[in-house]
């Protein structure tokens, strides 16, 4: 294929290079390890009585959420606040989006406030890329359609590393609706980057064609989770069973074939889930509440990993924007 350089935007003036977190595929192994190390250093701050750090004082972080979210939005808000950044959150309902404002115009409006970071969640693939093209902010993808959810993958890696003290050589089984899962896609790429092995398990109709090209094994048999160190259950969305989109015949059959039940979990394995869970469908409640489950640990990891991501974007690398307050604050949190 000829080497054709595509225009950055439809004729928009090129912006100065900035660091974004749009997709795991933009990261190197070194980037991931640096962010996870930062997160670990920040984690100790959570145990202090006064949890706030002055690190991002004077910075502005805008959360722009076009989809409902509990974990991601709350942890980004809290992460920005813990680092002393000014933060505000906009949801599509109750804003001008309700009046039909396009993403382009909303992004340009917010850009007029010169935010340092825009965190965006959007139901359409490519929305964070558009915001990155149109604004001068560092953009963090908090989930775009079925594409990517990179901070989820990073918090999952952090959780796994805390549990096993390593990522290299770890075997992770991701179980369920891979086809519609941005969580699976991001995690899969991140695991490959850090040297872990992945097996995707689920119904053939929910497995993307040629997904093996991303360097994973695929099985339709739940027994394939036996060898894994981590069993990662994906949310099974009921809308996938609607007429015309019947990817599986019934939730009952799905649960019996691919549900994570106590009988299917081996000692030494940990069980993870990005939430929100459908107890009794993709995960048996007895497993969700067992010692093997790391589901609330994931939420706690989410906070420190998102703090680390904001810190990393604003203070590391050549394109970081210098500020009058401080350029590279020390990571002394003890």
């Amino acid at each position, binding site marked *: 294929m*000829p080497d054709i350089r*595509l225009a950055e935007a439809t004729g928009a003036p090129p912006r100065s290079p900035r660091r974004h977190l749009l997709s795991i595929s933009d990261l190197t192994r070194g980037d991931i390890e640096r962010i996870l190390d930062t997160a670990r250093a920040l984690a100790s701050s959570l145990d202090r009585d006064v949890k706030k750090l002055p690190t991002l004082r004077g910075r502005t972080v805008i959360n722009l959420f076009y989809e409902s979210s509990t974990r991601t939005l709350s942890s980004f808000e809290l992460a920005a606040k813990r680092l002393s950044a000014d933060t505000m959150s906009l949801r599509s309902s109750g804003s001008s989006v309700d009046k039909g404002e396009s993403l382009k115009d909303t992004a340009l409006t917010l850009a007029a406030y010169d935010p340092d970071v825009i965190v965006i969640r959007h139901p359409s693939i490519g929305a964070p890329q558009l915001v990155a093209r149109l604004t001068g902010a560092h953009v963090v993808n908090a989930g775009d359609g079925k*594409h990517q959810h990179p901070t989820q993958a990073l918090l999952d890696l952090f959780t796994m590393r805390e549990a096993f003290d390593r990522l290299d050589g770890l075997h992770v089984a991701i179980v369920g609706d891979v086809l519609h899962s941005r969580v699976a896609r991001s995690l899969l790429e991140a695991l490959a980057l850090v040297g872990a092995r992945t097996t995707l398990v689920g119904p053939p109709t929910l497995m993307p064609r040629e997904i093996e090209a991303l360097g994973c094994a695929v099985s339709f048999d739940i027994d394939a989770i036996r060898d894994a160190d981590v069993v990662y259950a994906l949310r099974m969305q009921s809308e996938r069973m609607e007429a015309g989109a019947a990817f599986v015949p019934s939730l009952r059959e799905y649960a019996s074939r691919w549900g994570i039940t106590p009988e299917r979990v081996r000692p030494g394995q940990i069980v993870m889930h990005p939430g929100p869970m459908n107890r009794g469908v993709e995960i048996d409640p007895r497993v969700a509440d067992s010692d093997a489950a790391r589901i609330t640990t994931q939420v706690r990891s989410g906070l420190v990993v998102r703090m680390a991501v904001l810190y990393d974007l604003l203070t590391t690398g050549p394109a970081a924007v210098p500020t009058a307050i401080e350029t590279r604050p020390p990571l002394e949190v003890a």
Partner: protein
Amino acid sequence: MLYSRGGDLGSFTLEGRVVDPGEGIDATLIVTVENGMITALEPGGDGRLVLAPAFIDPHVHLRTPGREDEETIASGTAAAAAGGYCAILAMPNTDPIVDSAAALGSLIELAREEAAVPVGFFGAISKGQLGEELTEMGDLANAGAVGFTDDGQPVVSAGLMRRALQYAEITRRPLALHEEEPTLSRDGHMHEGAVSARLGFAGWPAIAESLMVERDLAIAAYESRPIHVMHVSAAESVTALRRAQADGVAATAEVTPHHLCLTDEAVLSLDPNVKMNPPLRSEDHRQALLEGLRDGTLSCIATDHAPHARHEKDAPFEEAPFGVTGLETAFAALHTYLIQPGVLPLATVFERMSAGPARAFGLPVPRIAVGGPANIVVLDLDREWHVTLDVFCSLSVNSWLLGAALRGRVVRTIAAGREVFAL
């Protein structure tokens, strides 16, 4: 069947390396044009520029009526002139749909006022392109329709497809088919393969096209009627067409410059200007298209020029409309990415951009021959240029080539004996 605003017929001489594969000419000549007719071809002159039969684009969206903010007949034909075209064929999926003689008549009137380059208009196959009832094809043909198509939508019902093919016989005009099995392409934003798996898009698989191509070839064989397959993108479609043609089915087919030059890897950029229908496919499909073009299975290169308002393309990839423009850049893109590197011969590209489409739609074949009308494109193959916003005559700029550096440029276009473009 072609309509334009006319104007004074030109009298001038052109000189250059004349390449007309149909006439078997590749020589440096002086071409004399008097009152729009070629009156002499004499050896001599400067061979720096190349003269070829002007191009015909069988697949253009002029967006008129309904979206004159995206394209008008004047702007679309100006873009065609800048691309070296002496005729273009316009799709009927406008607002309203061109599905009646009255709608067609007003378009023809408009073309007589403002078309810089002759335009032919398709009528719809089905009323409202809903795939339910046939249009009054007889009336549409009498009013000047160049052929029939429901482009933008497939003819989903095999029964209606068969009726359309049978009935179109009274018009002797071809049917041009958008091949897409909608229950397989459903919600698809790009080719189904490794790249869609990685990006998370619902895939538009190659078989969603080739299944319908095979169905319509079977109907065409059964009815002994010709069909034209538009914007072929899948290797399986090329194979099916080649086999049917060998069996004597009168099937022609077209391919776009973007499907010849790009693969689905381009979508990794999430640039809405590489979102089109059918989608860009993987390298094996691209190679099959190139082979089909070389051996003549695909006898036409068509741009599928599809203008879109800038604010509609400035959207997340998944929300952006399908389609890219291509009239101004088609030859330069093919020259830069395929002819210069030796992937396709110059003469083959000339043939597929001019004589091929003319034959598929029963139009006079542009020739550089004494006694015929002058339909000539003048090319500077060495000229390097950048695709910037100001190179577009189209009202829309949703080009996959924005920002690209190209080599080879149309410097002059003679259409139906008139100079319609000079750089």
